[in-house]
């Protein structure tokens, strides 16, 4: 088992490395091939020629791409100096690049945005797991009942409503119309936990609304599949009470795919919930990268992308390990 985990972690590192190579090439080579100077992108909109030359030198854009990549990679571990004449900039490790737009290391931007994104993702996850999985199980157990039909109709509607729509409607109502949640902005948990929760709640609800619907449908389908399995009939044939049949035998199998999807969803939510963050004006990873894209802040885009990919890769590893723990058939020996 330990060997399996180590193998998966090493595999994950290789994948992350590949992602970094590809993103790097995408951002540094493609503009070159297309004939534009990436330094212009880095230097911001309509810069002077001197500025472009300075940035080119500072970023080492005059060096071969392999060398550039090497500097980038080494910077993550050792930190990095960006020097051009008197203008010296130190980017401490882990240096995921330096945003000349915002005059700060990308890592600093990430660490500022991360708590916002984590708060948003985890809060919503707790809600949608409880609600979505709960409704899914109930619907499956009462298949065809009024409760089931109603839940599935609502769920179908909910999955087809985009977050920016439900988000704006909710914001309009609770923040402006009824003023239950006025002046929504992010407050750090450690500063004021109550305010933290109060301000995040509408965003949690919006995310949880969508995800609960998806998880209710997924859980219901998975549960119905499992309830039709032969081994559930065997469990009943043994004379087990229904609560053991459902709670132990059926749930254990039915929730396995749900947990798998949850791992992947959480991984990508942690990479930034772009629409929700933008709708509510929270500067999480999603909004940070959207802003970076709109201002052409390449180092930030690159850094955040690789960082977000890290979450997805990590989630994949955890899901694989989880699978191996619960299902003896895939357990490595």
């Amino acid at each position, binding site marked *: 088992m330990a060997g399996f985990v180590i193998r998966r972690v090493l595999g994950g590192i290789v994948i992350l490395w590949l992602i970094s190579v590809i993103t790097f090439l995408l951002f540094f080579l493609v503009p070159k091939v297309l004939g534009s100077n990436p330094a212009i992108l880095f230097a911001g909109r309509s810069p002077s020629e001197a500025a472009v030359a300075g940035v080119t030198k500072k970023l080492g854009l005059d060096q071969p791409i392999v060398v550039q990549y090497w500097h980038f990679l080494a910077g993550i571990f050792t930190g990095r100096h960006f020097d051009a004449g008197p203008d010296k900039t130190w980017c401490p490790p882990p240096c995921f690049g330096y945003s000349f737009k915002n005059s700060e290391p990308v890592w600093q931007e990430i660490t500022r945005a991360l708590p916002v994104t984590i708060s948003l993702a985890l809060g919503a996850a707790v809600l949608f797991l409880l609600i979505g999985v709960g409704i899914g199980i109930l619907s499956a157990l009462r298949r065809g009942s009024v409760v089931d039909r109603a839940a599935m109709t609502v769920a179908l509607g909910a999955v087809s409503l985009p977050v920016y729509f439900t988000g704006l409607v909710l914001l309009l109502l609770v923040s402006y119309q009824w003023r239950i949640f006025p002046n929504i902005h992010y407050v750090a948990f450690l500063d004021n936990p109550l305010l933290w929760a109060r301000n995040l709640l509408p965003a949690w609800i919006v995310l949880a609304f969508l995800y609960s619907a998806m998880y209710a449908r997924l859980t219901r389908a998975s549960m119905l599949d499992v309830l039709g399995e*032969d081994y559930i009939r*065997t*469990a009943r*044939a*043994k*004379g087990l009470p229904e609560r053991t049949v459902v709670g132990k035998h059926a749930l*254990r199998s039915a929730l396995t795919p749900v947990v798998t999807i949850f791992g992947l969803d959480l991984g990508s939510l942690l990479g930034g919930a772009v629409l929700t963050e933008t709708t509510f004006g929270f500067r999480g990873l999603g909004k940070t990268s959207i802003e970076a894209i709109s201002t052409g802040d390449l180092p930030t885009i690159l850094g955040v992308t690789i960082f977000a990919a890290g979450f997805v890769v990590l989630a994949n590893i955890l899901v694989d390990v989880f699978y191996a723990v619960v*299902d003896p058939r895939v357990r490595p020996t």
Partner: protein
Amino acid sequence: MTARPEPSAAAGTAAALVDRHYLDVRDLRVTFGTDDGDVRAVNGLSFGLERGRTLGIVGESGSGKSAASLALMGLQRGRRTTVAGEIWLDGENLVTASPERVRSLRGRQMAMIFQDPLSAMHPYFKIGDQIIEAYRVHHDVSKKVAKKRAIELLDRVGIPSAARRVDSYPHEFSGGMRQRAMIAMALSCDPSLLIADEPTTALDVTVQAQILDLLNDLQKEFNSAIIIITHDLGVVAEIADEVLVMYAGNAVEHGPVQEIFSAPQHPYTWGLLSSITRLDRTRSDRLRAVPGNPPSLIAVPDGCPFHPRCQYANLAGPATRTERPTLETVAPGHRVACHLPVEARVRIFREEVAPSL
């Protein structure tokens, strides 16, 4: 519906009380409500079985064998499924008993073995734990005591080094071993009624024979009543004391095994018997060897449900097409549901059917 309940079932309980079998099924009806109509999977089935006896139930696919046996266990599925009639087990009517009461009998007094032992065991749990669970749900003992019991049982059904294999997972067992483990699980509480729904169909021939031997031995040891459902008349010949032939949810012939093989009286039974002698067919093909298709269970033919496929329908008079034949006793313990006069059946079998068997 033109089908009438059988007289035995319609008769008052006073008379019935006198001689009730250990398992006594009367006018059992299992109906699945579907959007196309009611599927009458079991349609007035009656039979009795004593402890220490093995009943083989045969019949082609869809004749209601599984539906009937699941109903005995109270395991019928579906919100639109109804079970009617009487199922007396040791003097208790399971159809009217509370679901909780039936649950407490399940696994303890009556147990079931299924066709595919791989899918019938939970893939996530150790074989031993699954047996322990079956034992502990009906016995208030510690896990340790239950595990000892599980090892004993695995050993009894012929699992080598049971003390070690008790901690294996189902996927680590071969098909035959898994079926042995299923049998061990079913026997964990010494059930007096054991139902095996095609227990050997998924196994290869040598393993099949071993499993049948095992069931035979265990029956002698535990003196239980066994119902074995099968497509394979070879299995029946090997293990059963009695045979019940099902067609369209009903028994068409029921009798001692020697008599069913040597002097069968129902035209459908004849068809089944002549099909096994055709060894060139694959096993699954053999029971389908009766010409024609099984009837729809939503609109069962009037009269004898077998009449559209019966070669002798014209010899039996108009009643064949209008009136459902009831099971009549033709010899001790031998009952047949057919409108042909007994002499005609005996003659046809002797002159036309037997020579080609």
